[in-house]
Structure formats: structure tokens, C-alpha cells
């Protein structure tokens, strides 16, 4: 109760400032504005600046905040209207998620998707974070992607395909992570309950959403 009330207070303050972030971050849009103001001169020299002439400022603010705190541990994969994509290594995904919850006010996970990349020998797990309590974030989705090592002959739970669980930060990932474990064989360390969820108990084949599991007749 206490925490939610204090959240409400901060939320109420924000519209008065007419700025998306609190005082600490309101300094940040200022450095962003400078490059846009000087863009006509800079853009001629730098080709990457040309590609992103109209990056949405609010979304860029979120991405910059994460980069500022984590440096080269996190990289921006895209900034689109209402969507920010961040790529992090498996060692820092837990810290970035904690930062997203405590500082950026994301409060739950919409979806957790596992994507298999056999060519890279990696499996990507993508968390889509969203917020109910912060009205400035109601349109936003933060896409937090991290990758686990992929084994050719998986033994789910007993091979190197492991990631830290975010269950202690976002309780809402509980069933999603169970699903990713059974469908792609990514074991989540620290998850209290890594049992099967949708697949039958006696499933002994490859994790079915891996690309080398083929549907019969296809």
C-alpha cells in the first residue's frame, strides 16, 4: 500500500511538469535536443545520424537512461514510436530488469518469447515490459532481449543453455518462463518451479520450438 501511494504522488506530479520523467531525467532531454538542433550541419558528415532524423524523444530518453547506467553492457537494438528494444548480456539482464522496475517504473511483463537462432548457436529470450501504474508509460513496451548459449544435443536443465530468472523482480514471468523452458530448453536459474506446463509429462523429444524440431510432413 505504501509503495503504491508514493507512486501515485509521483505520477500526479508529472503532468504538472509536462515532462515525461522526474527531475533527474529532465536534464537528459536537453542534451538530446542539441544534436537535433545542430542536425543540419552534423548530418552531412555522419551518415548514421541521417538514418534517425526523427527518433521519438521520449523513447530515446528511456534508451539513453539504460545506456547511461550500464554502458557497453547494454545496446539499443531499436527505438520506434512506443517501443524500445534493448539487448543485454546474460550476466547483466537481472540488473537491467531491476533498474527498469525500480527507476523506470515498469511493473509487469506482458510476454516472454524465446527465439531460436541455430546459425548463431544462441537462443534469444525477449521480455516485453509494460507499466500499469505510470501513466507516461502506458503506451510503452520495453523489449529486453538476452541470449543463452545453444547446445546441438540439448538436455534441458542439464546443459549450458541457462539464463538467470527474472521471477524475483517481475513475479508475472513465472508461467512465461516455465513455457520458454519446455518449448526451447532454456533453464532459468533461480526460478522456483521449472516444471513442464503445456507439454505432456512424458515428452522426450527436442524442445518443440527449436528450429531443428520439424513438424511431421513439413
Amino acid at each position, binding site marked *: 500500500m505504501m509503495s503504491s501511494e508514493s507512486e501515485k504522488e509521483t505520477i500526479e506530479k508529472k503532468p504538472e511538469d509536462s515532462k515525461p520523467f522526474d527531475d533527474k531525467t529532465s536534464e537528459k532531454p536537453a542534451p538530446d535536443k542539441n544534436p537535433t538542433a545542430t542536425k543540419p550541419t552534423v548530418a552531412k558528415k555522419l551518415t548514421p545520424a541521417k538514418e534517425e532524423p526523427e527518433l521519438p524523444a521520449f523513447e530515446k530518453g528511456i534508451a539513453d537512461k539504460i545506456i547511461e547506467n550500464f554502458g557497453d553492457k547494454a545496446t539499443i537494438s531499436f527505438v520506434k514510436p512506443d517501443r524500445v528494444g534493448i539487448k543485454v548480456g546474460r550476466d547483466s539482464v537481472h540488473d537491467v530488469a531491476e533498474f527498469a522496475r525500480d527507476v523506470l517504473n515498469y511493473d509487469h511483463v506482458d*510476454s516472454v518469447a524465446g527465439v531460436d537462432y541455430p546459425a548463431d548457436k544462441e537462443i534469444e529470450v525477449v521480455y*516485453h515490459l509494460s507499466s500499469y*501504474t505510470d501513466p507516461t508509460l502506458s503506451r510503452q513496451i520495453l523489449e529486453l532481449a538476452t541470449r543463452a548459449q545453444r547446445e546441438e544435443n540439448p538436455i534441458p536443465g542439464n546443459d549450458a543453455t541457462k539464463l538467470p530468472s527474472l521471477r524475483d523482480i517481475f513475479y*508475472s514471468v513465472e508461467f512465461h518462463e516455465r513455457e520458454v523452458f519446455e518449448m526451447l530448453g532454456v533453464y532459468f536459474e533461480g526460478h522456483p518451479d521449472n516444471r513442464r506446463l503445456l507439454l505432456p509429462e512424458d515428452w522426450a523429444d527436442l524442445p518443440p520450438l527449436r528450429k531443428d524440431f520439424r*513438424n511431421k510432413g513439413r
Partner: protein
Amino acid sequence: MSSPTLPPGLAIQKADERIMTLNVGPQHPGSGHMRIIVQIDGDYIVACDPDPGYVHRGEEKMAEYRNYVLNIPHLERPVIHDSCNILYPYVLGAEELLGLEVTERAKYIRVIASELNRCVYTMYWLAIYGIFLGHSTMFMWPAGDRELLIDLLEKMTGARVTHSYFIPGGIRNDLPANFEDVCLRQVNYFEKRIKEYADVFYENPILISRTEKTGILTRENAIRLGTTGSVLRASGVDYDVRKKEPYDVYDELDFETNVMKSGDSYARSRIPWLDMMESCRIIRDALQKMPKSGSVRVKLKPNPKGALGSVYKRIESGRGALGCYIVSDKKPEPYRVKLSVPSFRNLIALPHLLIGEKLGNMPSTYWSLNYWPVEADR
């Protein structure tokens, strides 16, 4: 059983011996293709473990083998009563990847179809909720009134339930002649009918005494567990994707969201019913604002290829926010399609609602989650 050191009459029964494990489902009519493993101490539930997966069909895997258009008929199968809404985020995502621009008229028709479908779904859900509570009138009435809207959708799409109506670039076919008048008449009658449900069901003291103050989900828990839709709004969080992140033409339409604060089974069962009245309002407004003529569909190339990248789209379905994450690698088939379905997201709340509750309240609490087992399993 009794300990030999204690005199007769003072034997203490261990809690472990009192607790009984019950398997509810998967064939039980009160669970619907899923199993809930509950442990009961007398009449009270002390542990609950939902076990979905009995109707898992691998929709996400199937989507990796078919192109963006061929995916449409099978992706709506997880919840055929809400088939327009489950396709909606997929179609929005595919449009972004294929770079298609939808015409204004198609957007309005999509909204009308999606709202009609929301009502069709909710009526079906309500019918089963009625029979769960032993209220057979509440089974007959929604099942009958639902036909009105199914007729309308049949006129629009040609199919009663599995419409396959939305396609990337618009909708499959235009409305039939004179649809607006028929739709307005049916929707007005439908709204009049559902208002009568108040007397027989929602203001019924028996329903209220059975569902009020049972299965309470607090506001903090609703947010922490990431619940969505009617479950979230019954716990006092005003979050509806149609309002917060309007897609297509929802930002031009006039409607309200329904929020209740109590977070009990009664609130969760009342919100979908109130939402249906808002749906009627949306349909009437959309019929008025809709462009009366024009193209409804962009011509697609055969086997269109998606742009490199990923997209996450979400919409508000009959049960809550429904997200679709599509990864494309410049091939006609999507590399990965992930459906983040509201039933799956709300299921996590079930143990929190049932523990400490009487076993007799289990069916009403479970179905008040607005849960559709087939959708959760995909």
C-alpha cells in the same frame, strides 16, 4: 493413526492426514480442458496448482511454416468465439512488417467486427458462468441472444464462428448492402436484452451472496501478477489498451472503460457485462462515423515478404490485452510468431485467488478469471 503414547480420546490427527488432493479436470465440465490440482483441508483449499496444456496445438510452431496470409485461418483457432480479436494483433504486426497502409473504411469495419466478436465471446463465457453457478436461465438467455450477433457476423464474413475476416491490408470483403441498418437494429435490441440480465442475474441476491467477497485479488497483486483485461479492471486498475494505446480508429470513437474496486468474483463477472454495453456504444458510433464507401483491402503480392526485424502489437480482446510478437527474416513465412494471450497471463492469479477459499467457490472463482483454456494452451 493414533499415537500409542497418548490416552484414547486425546489422539491428534496430523494435518498431513487431513489434507486431501483433488484433481479437477481435465474432463470435468467445471474446468474445461484443463486440470486444477487442489489440496483441501476439510472444505478449504490450501494449495492449488493449475495444469493447462491438454489442448496445446503448437499454433506458434505451425505459424513458422505458413506465409503471412495462410497463417490467418489457424491462428484464430485458439479462441474461435473471439476470432477477430485474436487475429487483430497478428494482422497489425504483419501490416507493419509488410508495409501496408489500411484504408479508413476497413479500419472502421474491423472495429465493428471486433466489438461484435467481443460480445459474442462474452455471451458464451456468460452462458457457461451461469451454468457453473447452476443458473440455467443464464445459460439459455446468453446462448440465445448471442445468435443475433452471430447472424450479423455471418452477414459480414460468411462464417458463423471462424471468420478469418481480418487480413494484412484490411478485411477480406466489404459489408453487404443494407448492413448498417440491420446492424443498428440488432445491436439496439441486443443492448436492451443484456440490460435485462441485471434483474435475473447481476442483481440477483443469490449470485451476489455466492460471488461477493470471494476470490479477492488486491490492486497490488493484480499489477504484480501482470493480470489483464476484466481481471485487472475489477481490481481497480484502469487499463484498457483501446484507451491507452489506441489502434486503428479507437481514438476517434466515444466510449468509457469500466473499473470496479472490490476485486472479487462478482466484480470480475460484472465487468465483461458492462463492457458489452460499451461495445454497443462503440458499434453505433462507428456505424455513424464510418466512410460510406471506398476500398476495404489493399492488394497483396503473392507470398509477400516481411521486412527484417521484429514487431510487438497488442490489442484489447474480450479477455484482456492480447499481444503478438512477430520476428521476420525477409522470408514469406514469419521466423517466429509468439501470441501473448490474456488467458495465459491471468492464469497465474488462480492460486492466489483460491487458496483459503471454500471448495464450493472454486468454479465461480475460476470462471470469473475470464479464462479460455484453449487460448491459454495455444
